[in-house]
């Protein structure tokens, strides 16, 4: 029941998004069709094309046609790449997903020890240091930190590639995740290749979530410390390691789960800049181009996909939260 309600509500939001974006891009000035037909296209053929794409009908008709198109798995022709936006997204989404997942994993892995340690060493120098770090982490303009990473690791130390996802031939496509595919096909050169390409953008992208998660975990850990159950487990002689990294962390981490959910939209947004800087062939880069070049189908398509991703992740995260923290399950 609860599940169904959530699902319904998800649909609602997504429809809302599609409407919002649809209206937004359709009011963009300038005639995209003239561009699509190429310069010097005569008025007649432009008119024809407009009719063909139904741009002269009232906006709500256009909207319904668009939705109907979606049901057929079409998102309309992109004026940037001259093919159906759905195809483009199919091609480019894995790249973005790989990037974001990598960054989030990196963030979580680093955040847990940082958070726990700075909570245990509360008000110590380490702690202040960590707080500062976490504040710094969220203060970087990622397009700039991206450039600086390129400058330092790409040019000065010259051991990371500057841009792109891979320089050699890509591995045989199975999951579309280069790291995984290359491993499955024992294609280790490609794996290394993909890895070094992934490293810099993933790192840049992970800074903000790393900071936020560390911060949250620290705060929660400190709350947990004052809980009676800590006293009891201490009194029963349980070792500090188990207490802080198992008992407290489990309590402290489940709220962080939701935080991670909230981070996803931010990450998707940040990817727009990061993929630009690192010429990462993902949907974010395409989306940025589509939006800034009046490619209305591309723009709506990408935004739609992204917001679906966002909503779904939040949904999953909530469910997971329930698993990690029985209190939630019981409350339902």
């Amino acid at each position: 029941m609860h599940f169904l309600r959530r699902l319904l509500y998800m649909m609602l939001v997504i429809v809302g998004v599609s409407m919002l974006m649809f209206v937004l891009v359709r009011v963009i000035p300038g005639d995209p069709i003239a561009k699509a037909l190429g310069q010097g296209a005569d008025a007649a053929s432009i008119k024809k094309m407009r009719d063909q794409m139904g741009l002269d009908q009232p906006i709500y008709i256009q909207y319904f046609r668009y939705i109907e198109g979606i049901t057929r798995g079409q998102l309309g022709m992109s004026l940037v790449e001259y093919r159906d936006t759905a195809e483009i997204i199919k091609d480019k989404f894995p790249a973005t997903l790989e990037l974001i997942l990598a960054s989030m994993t990196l963030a979580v892995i680093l955040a847990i020890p940082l958070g726990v340690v700075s909570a245990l060493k509360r008000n110590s120098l380490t702690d202040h240091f960590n707080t500062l770090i976490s504040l710094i982490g969220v203060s970087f303009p990622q397009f700039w930190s991206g450039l600086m990473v390129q400058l330092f690791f790409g040019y000065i130390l010259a051991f990371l590639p500057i841009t792109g996802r891979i320089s050699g031939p890509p591995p045989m496509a199975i999951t579309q995740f280069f790291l995984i595919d290359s491993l499955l096909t024992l294609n280790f050169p490609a794996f290394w290749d993909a890895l070094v390409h992934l490293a810099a953008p993933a790192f840049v992208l992970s800074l903000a979530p790393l900071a936020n998660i560390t911060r949250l975990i620290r705060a929660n850990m400190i709350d947990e410390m004052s809980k009676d159950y800590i006293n009891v487990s201490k009194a029963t002689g349980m070792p500090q390691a188990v207490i802080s990294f198992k008992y407290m962390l489990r309590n402290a981490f489940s709220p962080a789960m939701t935080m991670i959910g909230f981070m996803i939209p931010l990450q998707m947004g940040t990817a727009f800049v990061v993929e630009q800087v690192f010429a990462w062939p993902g949907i974010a880069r395409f989306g940025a181009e589509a939006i800034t070049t009046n490619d209305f189908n591309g723009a709506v398509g990408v935004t739609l996909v992204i917001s679906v991703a966002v909503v779904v992740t939040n949904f999953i995260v909530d469910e997971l939260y329930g698993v990690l923290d029985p209190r939630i399950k019981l409350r339902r």
Partner: protein
Amino acid sequence: MNDENEKIQVRKEGITRGLIKLSRNRLSLIGASFLLAAILLALLAPWIAPYPEDAGGAVHFERQLKPPSFSYLLGTDESGRDILSRLLYGARISLALAVVVLTIAFFVGVPLGICAGYYGGKVDQVIMRIADVFSSIPAIVLALAVSVALSPNLINSMIAIGFVWWRSFCRLAYGETLSIKQENFILSSKSLGASDLHIMFREILPNMSSTLLVKLTLDAGFAILVGTSISFLGAGASPPTAEWGLMVAYGRHYLPYAWWPSLFPGLAIFATVLSFNLLGDGLRDFFGVEVE
């Protein structure tokens, strides 16, 4: 027992207590002072900038990409303009952006949030669902789309970001209202027949002021981040405006041979955002409020 005749300690009260807390938090003091400095520099830019004309249309290709030196403390950019001067003028833009964005966001978001929280039911549903729609699109993406729709320029990008930002204030105000609504003094003044408007804006609003203040401080930084990002992507300020994001966008083309045109503007953004965060963090502890 010696400690009984130690010197009498006085219990600190209210503000003094807070101030001590705040002063203990050196970081936020640093942040605050940097911001103050930034604002001053921004205001005084025309008088203190070594080459004020460089912030405008002036170009001096004969001295393009000169590394930092005594005459050009932070070097010159691809058109031979003094980077320091442009940074100073850029500060005006970034701060203005923060102000504009937050004003829009505040005056749209907070009232909506309070209404939703106060009336509940249908109003709540409608407003908050809309807020959900907005918050399921990443801020940068939506802002980008809006500012392109309004035809890209500095002002439009500010408006666009504001248009995107209201949602988070709405959420915050909504949550706060829900909790404050339950307080006795609200119920009592309701029973005394105070008008809804009075309750919402004379009684509920003041009670979330500290939270909002913290939120404003923290978001100022992020607003600047989004703003510069949008300019970087080419949907914001257009040349020759001395906008920090734009400066980085142009400077990047001369890496690694000339690092200064992209390094310093980025540092400026970073420092500003950081100090907003430091200050906001301090205020958060000061008021003991939680703002996600």
